[in-house]
């Protein structure tokens, strides 16, 4: 924990969260959370329902419900974000900090062709001309591994499968090459084979763009696939933090041990032969 305090106050961090507290009246749902993300770092927050993991992420980009009171400091690239006006934050959202949500069905506009939705942040933040943005949108569809990018860009969300829609969500989020991508349970709604493909695309793209990642999940087994460091949250507070493989091998907090034991009980036994090799061998973009 002390290490995280020290890192959070480092002015060189891309994102520094200090003493973040979110409350609804007397009900404190995020309790003095402190952590930081360096440039190019991939951090996961793991927690069960009600742990405060999603509200922690939402308060970084100022999307908490109006009824909530937020205190503490969130510094992004040297600028303080808490207390900023919504108009100022919305300039940041989608450009420097982008987000991928759990359910692409609800986060995409059903009445707009997906290409236009991908082009929207480019036109808005980069002032790109409509035709240039449309071209860029097709290229982004190709980057996220959609088989026929030009026709995919012309599709409406309902014409795509869940996996394809989440690829669109990723394309949209990465359009402006954000410095930080926040992904909140991005594969929870997907089938397991599709999840493997979508995670592979996500990991590859953020590595190429050196985008920092904040990955929020309830599934411990996903953490080693996408993150280097992890925060374990429970009842609004961080109970443990550090290197992913170290924590999985030797958790120091009893809650983390409990969570890992429960996850192992319902997980398939490790299979070193198929594990990483099979993930890498999944054919891209089939769904």
């Amino acid at each position: 924990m002390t290490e995280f305090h020290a890192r959070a106050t480092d002015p060189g961090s891309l994102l520094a969260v200090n003493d973040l507290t979110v409350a609804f009246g007397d009900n404190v749902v995020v309790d003095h959370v402190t952590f930081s993300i360096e440039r190019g770092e991939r951090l996961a927050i793991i927690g069960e329902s009600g742990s405060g993991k999603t509200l922690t992420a939402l308060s970084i980009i100022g999307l908490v419900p109006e009824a909530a009171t937020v205190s503490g400091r969130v510094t992004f690239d040297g600028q303080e974000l808490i207390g900023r006006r919504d108009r100022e934050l919305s300039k940041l959202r989608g450009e420097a900090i982008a987000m991928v949500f759990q359910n692409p069905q609800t986060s995409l506009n059903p009445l707009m062709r997906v290409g236009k939705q991908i082009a929207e942040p480019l036109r808005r933040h980069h002032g790109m001309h409509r035709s240039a943005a449309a071209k860029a949108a097709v290229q982004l569809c190709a980057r996220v591994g959609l088989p026929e990018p030009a026709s995919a860009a012309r599709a409406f969300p309902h014409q795509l499968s869940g996996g394809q829609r989440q690829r669109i969500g990723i394309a949209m989020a990465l359009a402006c090459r954000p410095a930080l991508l926040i992904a909140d349970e991005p594969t929870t709604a997907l089938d397991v084979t599709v999840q493997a493909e979508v995670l592979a695309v996500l990991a590859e793209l953020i590595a190429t763009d050196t985008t920092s990642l904040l990955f929020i999940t309830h599934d411990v087994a996903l953490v080693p696939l996408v993150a280097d460091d992890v925060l374990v949250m429970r009842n609004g507070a961080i109970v443990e933090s550090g290197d992913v493989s170290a924590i999985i091998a030797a958790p120091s907090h009893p809650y983390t041990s409990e969570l890992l034991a429960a996850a192992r009980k319902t997980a398939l036994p490790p299979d070193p032969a198929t594990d990483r090799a099979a993930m890498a061998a999944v054919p891209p973009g089939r769904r």
Partner: protein
Amino acid sequence: MMNERPLLLSARDVGRVYRLPRKSLFGPRAERHALTGVNLDVHEGDTVGIVGESGSGKSTLARILLGLDRATTGTVTYRGRPVEPGHPREQRWFRRDVQIVFQDPLSSLDPRLTVADTIAEPLVGLQVDGSHDERVREVLTAVGIDPATRDRYPHEFSGGQQQRIAIARAIAPNPDVLVADEPVSALDVSVRAQILDLLGHLVDQFHLSLVMVSHDLGVIHSLCERVIVLHQGVVAEAGPTATVFAKPTDAYTRRLLAAVPRLAE
């Protein structure tokens, strides 16, 4: 496969075809083959997993096994008698013997019934003899819910406790077969392990046969001795869970197993 124990539920060459809405005024209606040529035998004491991704037909198969949906082709029998949708009174013999637990406990429990009424209701409907009060106390104790809370309502319980109540309701008529459709998918991981433990205990304690439908291979692995893998309505692979998961022979099963994220010990 040789089996000495009596055959309970049996699906023979079951197919289910849905007719899709007409796209044009002329010409035939399109069809979707949700299930094709599925065979499944559940003997006394079996624990069978039906695993598949969305659209694989696993829920359709469960509904047909329960007599909630009619197979387009093939037959389902329970102890040799045909099972199909019909008037509830004619199905009473079957409903007492085969019970179900659904995915979302809160939507499967009536919010206006107390825990005791929730559990006693099927006992009344199925004309089960004996003291219902006594049975309610027994099954609540068996699922780890304090019988003193019997007059509370479902919303007063946590998600895990609600699922325990739904399980208590299912085992109350003393069924031989329990069909569980994604029984832990809506639950947090720590609660999930507890509910799976509970189901394992109940299977032993009440000599239940278990049919569990899940998209989660780990859940099937933890509880089911046999598994059938469904892919696009067809059985891709079937056999003992340990064999199928360790040495899959079918290409789809291999791809499915490879996609499951694993945790190092």
